[in-house]
């Protein structure tokens, strides 16, 4: 884990409230695995006070990218940071997805993204595609869910690296009309053998609970990436815990990725989107 002063390379808007930020952070880029995150100090004042966690979206040589939505004060201020400025960034944090599972067991990886949950899944898709080499039979299938068409992110990028992409929108403005979890149900039902897949999901907590319910029925290996409010991001404060079958675990340290059957899914009032 490293604390870096990273040079901001770009911080581009992607549609209304979404941004793609790239920075030079060689040590973090070198160590990162898909599913890990970074923790960013937005500026050097106490407003906003705490660091903000973001999934690692892409790694390219010395550079890392994050994809984020301006939802509050911190992310809004982040979106104002200009090229050439420095970003105080801590990472890579957390455990990451077990992408080797799909490779070793010859499973077709199915990546299920709800909204901004797409962010860390692109890094995962790239890693899988690269590791698979020419075994295209098992190239990742990506299910992207969002409220409407203009909130679908990264469709082209996934296709470009050889993933098959299907889309679900709540209002039917693109692809399947309905929830991405309904699309997942449909996708699994068309397969001769749902067990030949491995699921990797990221998105709001209720969506992940539903993914977990669906996959349990089929007995499919499933990993989910959770969000929880974080103060330290490095396992020190015990603020970010989630209830598991073995008691509370820290989302920032033992997670953010968990095997779905580990989690005690309860009604969640805060966190996640």
């Amino acid at each position, binding site marked *: 884990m490293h604390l870096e002063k990273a040079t901001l390379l770009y911080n581009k808007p992607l549609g209304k409230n979404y941004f793609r930020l790239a920075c030079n952070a060689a040590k973090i880029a070198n160590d990162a695995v898909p599913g890990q995150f970074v923790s960013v100090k937005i500026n050097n004042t106490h407003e906003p006070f705490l660091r903000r966690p973001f999934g690692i979206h892409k790694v390219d040589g010395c550079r890392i990218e994050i994809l984020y939505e301006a939802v509050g004060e911190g992310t809004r201020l982040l979106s104002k940071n200009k090229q050439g400025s420095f970003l105080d960034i*801590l990472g890579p944090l957390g455990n990451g997805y077990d992408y080797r599972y799909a490779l070793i067991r010859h499973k077709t990886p199915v990546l299920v993204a709800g909204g901004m949950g797409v962010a860390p899944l692109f890094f995962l898709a790239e890693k899988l595609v690269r590791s698979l080499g020419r075994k295209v039979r098992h190239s990742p299938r990506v299910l992207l869910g969002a409220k409407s068409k203009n909130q679908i992110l990264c469709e082209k990028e996934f296709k470009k690296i050889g993933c098959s992409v299907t889309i679900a929108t709540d209002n039917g403005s693109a692809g399947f009309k309905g929830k991405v979890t309904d699309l997942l149900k449909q996708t699994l039902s068309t397969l001769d053998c749902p067990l030949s897949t491995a699921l990797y999901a990221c998105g709001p907590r209720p969506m992940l609970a539903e993914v977990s319910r669906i996959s349990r029925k089929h007995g499919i290996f499933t990993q989910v990436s959770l969000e929880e409010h974080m103060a330290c991001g490095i396992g020190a404060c015990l603020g970010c815990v989630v209830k598991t079958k073995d008691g509370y675990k820290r989302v920032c340290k033992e997670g953010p990725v968990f095997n779905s059957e580990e989690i005690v899914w309860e009604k969640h009032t805060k966190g996640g989107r």
Partner: protein
Amino acid sequence: MLKRQAQLSVYIGTLKLKNPVMVASGTFGYAEEFKDYMDLKKLGAIVTKTVTLKPRQGNPVPRTCETPAGMLNSIGLENPGIDVFIDKKLPFFKKIGVPIIVSIASEASAEEFIALAERLDGIQEVSGLELNISCPNLKDAKSGRGSHALIAQDAQATQRLVKMVRKVTKKVLITKLSPNVTSITDIAEAAEDAGSDALSLINTLTALCIDVKSRRPKIATITAGLSGPAIRPVAVRMVWEVYKRVKIPLIGMGGITDTESALEFFIAGASAISVGTGNFLNPKVSTEIIGGITQYLEKNNIRSIKKLTGSLLCQR
């Protein structure tokens, strides 16, 4: 002319620290979490997350939220209990080679404090005990709701407890005070009279944050402890008040995020300081502060940090 290096060493009771910069209980995990970011050996001392006799799973989430220049927490003393602590966590601390102060607490009884102190008294690598009698995030034993009466809110209860623990341990004994009191000096004197070697102050301030959209508290236990720069002026004032009334050394904390904020505490009367929430913003800030204090002392021709303690100039 060759300048002599400023002296940073201080005594907390009989315990000598090579420098006066410590890290506060509950904000430094079990130290392992910080080893990638800094040289742990540089610290003056490390205070562990509070440990209790039995394991505690802690409070439900959300446990933290951000506030202006600070944060609320209601962790509820999640910890694996003293046995697992000694087995699994202490070995790493022993390897670091800096004084380890184990923070202990009990929700239930004075007997538990004594049992904890007795267990730890026999462990050579434990340099001191900090009595956490000021955690605001435990349930009230009667109502089952937040904010129970703290030992640190009652001078007599404080005196009784410190006396009892004093009898069973030869380790350096530190009492951690709560700011949620009418007169912190009364509690400080009670702890001193009962044989505490030093005082840590302050723990968090009881607070409440409301999400107006849902009209719900932002923290599951409703109330929680406020920390960070938001509480610093309160903490500095309390250190100053207590410094005037007791002789034992004070360990000042509350919102320290850089050298300047650390220096305020020394000037107000602290012999040492602890970095708490500041560790979350910059995980290596404690070591930066050690360097910063040295620079300040040398620049101002102050030979020793001891000269700075209580050096507040009150005349205009």
